[in-house]
């Protein structure tokens, strides 16, 4: 699953072209580098598990996973697939204890893992970083909400 012992290769370059970090200067990014490490995930392995402690936020660097919510009676709902640039587990930025969904890798993945508590603290202390990051995440959340709406509309059955 993860590759703990491996040295943290995260550099400012890792953040380039990830929409979540768009607009942050190199100096600002350097402050974030310290909170992050990369993990490799094999096909079929969990990226996060519903109910587990929501400690870190992840951003997909490569590969693909799917987001699943477990429902009562052993039923599951497959919500969406996530690929490069997409965020998994915003919950880590909220005062929330557990994951509300699970994610499983469909293709071998590299994910950027950010320590939620530290990232929150950084945003609190440096509002410029905080504002940028929250703005980018807000755009991401808004896009997802829009997509969810379209999924609910069941648009292909309409004209």
């Amino acid at each position, binding site marked *: 699953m993860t590759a703990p012992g491996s040295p943290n290769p995260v550099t400012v370059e890792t953040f380039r072209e990830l929409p979540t970090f768009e607009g942050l200067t190199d100096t600002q990014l350097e402050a974030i580098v310290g909170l992050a490490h990369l993990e490799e995930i094999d096909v079929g392995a969990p990226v996060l598990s519903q109910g587990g402690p929501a400690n870190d936020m992840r951003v997909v660097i490569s590969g*693909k996973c*799917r*987001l699943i919510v477990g429902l009562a009676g052993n039923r*599951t*709902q*497959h*919500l*969406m*697939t996530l*690929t*490069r*640039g997409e965020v998994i587990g915003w919950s880590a930025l909220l005062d929330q204890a557990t994951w509300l969904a699970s994610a499983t890798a*469909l293709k071998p993945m590299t994910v950027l893992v950010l320590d939620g508590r530290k990232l929150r603290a950084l945003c609190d202390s440096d509002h410029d970083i905080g504002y940028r990051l929250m703005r980018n995440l807000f755009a991401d959340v808004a*896009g997802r909400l*829009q*997509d969810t709406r*379209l*999924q609910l*509309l*069941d*648009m*292909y*059955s*309409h*004209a």
Partner: protein
Amino acid sequence: MPERIAATELNSLVSLLQADGYRVIAPTIRDGAIVYDEIASAGELPVGWTDDQAPGEYRLRRRDDSAAFGYVVGPHSWKQFLFPAREQLVTLRVRDKQPEWSAVADEGPAYAFVGVRGCDLAAIEIQDTVFTKGPFVDGRYRARRDRCLIIAVNCTEAGDLCFCASMGTGPRADGDYDLRLTEVGDELLVEAASARGRSLMDRLPTQAGGEALQVQADQAITQCGDAMGRSLNVTDLPAKLMGNLEHPRWQDVAERCLSCGNCTMACPTCFCSNITDTSILSGDETARERSWDSCFTADHSTIHGAQFRPDVKSRYQQWLTHKLATWTSQFGTSGCVGCGRCIAWCPVGIDITEEANAIAAGPGHPAPLPEPKQYEARENDGQVPVPVRVASVVRETHDTVTLTLDLPDGYQHGHGQFNMLSLPGVGDVPISVSGSNGQALEHTLRDVGKATGALADLVTGDVLGLRGPFGTAWPIEEAVGRSVVLIAGGIGLAPLRSVLREMIARHDDFPHLRLLYGTRTPNDILFSRELLGWIQNSRVRAHVTVDRGDSSWDGNIGVVTKLIRRKRLPKDGLYFLCGPEIMMHFALAELLADDVPEKNIYVSMERNMKCAVGLCGRCQYGPHFVCKDGPVFRYDQISDIFGKSGF
């Protein structure tokens, strides 16, 4: 040279016409109104009568003279003879399970219309344009029109609801008449404008010396023009109306309007029709019938899963903007001739001039409409299906099938065009060509209603009717050498498949090809085998996403717009979109946000369709007809109305 004739001699005109074999249709009194009907003699003209008109009111009144044409227009118009309220277009006979369609020949009489006013002459010319200026030509209409003889009358007294002077159609009856009369006292000025007219004039007991009478006639006509009961400010009217679609007056009129459709029926230019197959219980013959329809009915703007004009406001808006604005773009003239019928025969007396003047004076920026298109007229109304045999049926998903049909002789189509497929007694529906080769033609259709349901039940060897191809195609040649991205949603993959196959085959012309396809669930994926081939084919980058996946599906889950966001698409590429309108709406939003120019995007539209050839009015989309100007539109042609309610 104009001549003169005593008013008492009008019957000699009627007799001459009858002797020439015409059925003489003229104003005559019936049920408290001056209607148009066949007359046996001039004695049946409303001599000595006039009409008092007000919004929603019409009363006959005795005149204190014996004028033969001393009234304006009534509840009827000449369109009922040239474009009958009900008419059979095609008959179908089934012999040994083999359907045979044939056009109903026009064997109607030759009419002589007596008493055609300036407004009505203009209205006939407007309908001539609608029915005979292409791309398809209504042969029955044209035959009736060619046979008919027109005796026009200049107006010398304006009615309270008349505004032909504003519309430039009267009070002088200019245009395509044979003979023209102007009533001055107890004499009539007679002018001929055609060989048939001159021949009549030669045989009438006319006298020379028309010039003196002409002076009086001209004076009376000029006075009439100054005495119009209504007026409409036509300066830049189309753009002003289109720029004021948010005016509160629309809601105001919607509260008064019964949406009964009387205005559209009374209007001499309205041409919308419905086409239905008449039922048969026994017997082997069915007919396809055309009948007057109105944009005030729900059916007019309803397709499976959507009603584009659900409320009175949007229906009134369609009526008014079609008459006074979009018509100019469709046919090169206004759709209104200023006859005032729609004001009189509206039970609640809604006045088109009052509404249009108020709305056009609103604060909205004028929104100019496209220039009228010119069409090549063909000698054909495209209404007669040819029988084709089902060569094979492939069930694509639980509700979708692909019908492979034997290719009709000489049939050729562009990718993106559609055919009308018909089944006896059920009707016909537009279905895009989803593929073809030298021998066969494929259609992929989803079972959503009565016709598609019946089509989906066909089996190999069955025979159905096909007419087409119709509409515009994807602009393949424009795409040569450029990046091309096809974006499909649901059944929208069908019309794109045919173009994709072509582009894959011509790889050198289309080196950068992408397909983004979204559908509901993995079980709804169309052409799955072929799709897999595309995904594995290095010549095309194909991506599929579903709204709802399950554990057996390890492809993308999410809406197709998400693929657009993810795939970093070329700004200078060409985009072909086909799918539900709502999906195209959000896909367009993503592309435009990414600075893809509007003119690089093509979309395929869907509206209710009956005729498929521009004659029934059903598929109107603002200034366009989806059947003849679409279904494939370049987005900048429709961006001002796309996604707007009421269109």
